[in-house]
């Protein structure tokens, strides 16, 4: 079956390749900082739009949902670039140099980092400008980090699919939103519990689901990407 191949062929080499490709991603991003700041600006601008449309959001569920919807759209915009920005020739060159999965994992890792930075910045701005009704900050931050990784991971594979189908932003949302929903649901539940300060016991189950979904997403990406990258 599919799984056996995946485990058998996933050698340590892939890890090393992933790390060096990850460094390459960082380097490219550093050279094109405007793209990163563009997404960051998008988050900040959306926060200010929320401020002007909602004034102060006092209800925790509304605040929480609003925050995650902003991050959801930010993740589509941020992650959609990952395969779109590379020319098909350069991608092909990368695939011949390294295991294609290493290319995907590097992008996955890089997108996770990007989303965590965006999430934390977004939380800071959202907290200052709109409201900060979080009772249990450590739990909220943990949920934020895990959730951002989840969003990034899901949208990385989706962006690989969308890039093969003409790189259309609408297609990316259409394909991505239904698939990301289980993750988003668990994230919103866990972060609402963190905001309410109801303790770690209740949130632990949802954190477990987020982690499990992260594992599923990474495994499926590793399994399916080998069939995807060829043209």
């Amino acid at each position, binding site marked *: 079956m*599919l799984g056996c191949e995946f485990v058998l062929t996933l050698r340590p080499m892939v890890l090393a390749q992933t790390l060096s490709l990850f460094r390459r991603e960082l380097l490219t991003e550093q050279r094109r900082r405007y793209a990163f700041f563009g997404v960051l600006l998008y988050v900040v601008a959306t926060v200010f739009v929320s401020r002007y449309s909602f004034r102060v959001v006092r209800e925790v569920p509304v605040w929480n949902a609003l925050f995650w919807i902003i991050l959801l759209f930010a993740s589509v915009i941020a992650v959609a670039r990952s395969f779109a920005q590379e020319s098909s020739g350069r991608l092909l060159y990368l695939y011949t140099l390294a295991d294609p999965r290493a290319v995907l994992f590097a992008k996955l890792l890089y997108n996770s980092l990007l989303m965590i930075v965006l999430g934390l910045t977004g939380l800071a701005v959202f907290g200052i400008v709109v409201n900060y009704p979080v009772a249990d900050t450590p739990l909220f931050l943990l949920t934020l980090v895990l959730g951002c990784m989840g969003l990034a991971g899901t949208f990385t*594979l*989706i962006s690989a*699919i969308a890039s*093969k*189908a*003409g790189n*259309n932003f609408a*297609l990316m949302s*259409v*394909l991505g*939103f*239904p*698939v*990301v*929903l*289980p993750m988003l*649901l*668990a994230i919103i*539940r866990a972060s609402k519990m963190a905001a309410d300060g109801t303790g770690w016991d209740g949130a632990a*189950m949802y954190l477990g*689901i987020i982690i499990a*979904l992260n594992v*599923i997403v990474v495994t*499926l990406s590793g399994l*399916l*990407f080998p*069939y*995807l990258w*060829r*043209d």
Partner: protein
Amino acid sequence: MKLSWWKWACVVLLIYTFTAGLLVPMAPGILRVSPDNLSTAAAPFTVKVHGYNTRFLSNQNSLQAWLLNDKTQVAATTAKALSETEAELTFPALAPLQKPVFDLFVNDDADGTLVMASAIATTDSISAISPVSKISVKNEKEDYFAFPFQHILYESIRNLFFHVPMWFAMIALMAWAVFNNIRYLRGGQQKHDLMAAEAVNAGLVFGVLGLLTGSLWARVTWGSWWVDDIKLNGTAITMLAYMAYVVLRGAVDDEQKRARISAVYSIFAFVMMLVLIGVLPRLSGNDSLHPGNGGNPAFGQYDLDSHLRAVFYAACLGWILLGFWVYNLRYRIRLLNEKIHHA
């Protein structure tokens, strides 16, 4: 016309589902009591019971009724049948022992014991001790084939043979689609891709039917066409994912590329949907109205009785076979089209 055995089975099962599912009568039950909110402690009181499919008049002699409050039974002094479905019950003055509501029991030889929990609410405060009287219940009941009488559900319980199996048919077709997606990725044969695509198309038809029958059922039992229910919204999202699959297929022109990309998306989406409608609803606290979810007991636990099962299992198999029949026809038309285009 030559039909293979499973198509005959499908026709027979669905004819059985429609005839048995729609024609089998409902078991007798109590619809309502009027008045259902009155003072019971001051003087003896009379209430009128409205039954459903009951035979009060023809069993006037064996008709008896009693109220229950905190394990204390109080028998009606008189029980007079007005018609087959209406009876007038007179009770002695009663003050409730614990809760200010009484459960009503009506018994006759033909209908057996009919129960309506919290049938009569009393305006009196909880205080006095009610008289206890012995009731001799003959729990004999004519055993005939009938569906259980459930409050709120009533006749709509028959939707069980349509709404639930339609989802099963959709899930079976989607699973078949994913199986073929995997076969395509492993073997690269175009027919597997076409099978998967047509299975999704047929599955979507059953998804729409499931949503329509579910919406109708929700209107009847929960009072709204669309309710805030995690399972309902989860299945709606599943439909969106499969519509996205159709859109994705439309966006790619090259056949092999389309087959590969859509297979990858379909497998990914299927796993996520399993989590969305299979795992999450069972975990959430109280945001589902469906049996077996959101802390509700599963259907089979107490109210899927043997009479319902006799039709339900046939209905499941019948609708799933119909789903595969629809899929089979679509797939064959697709193959013919492919042949015409390549010729």
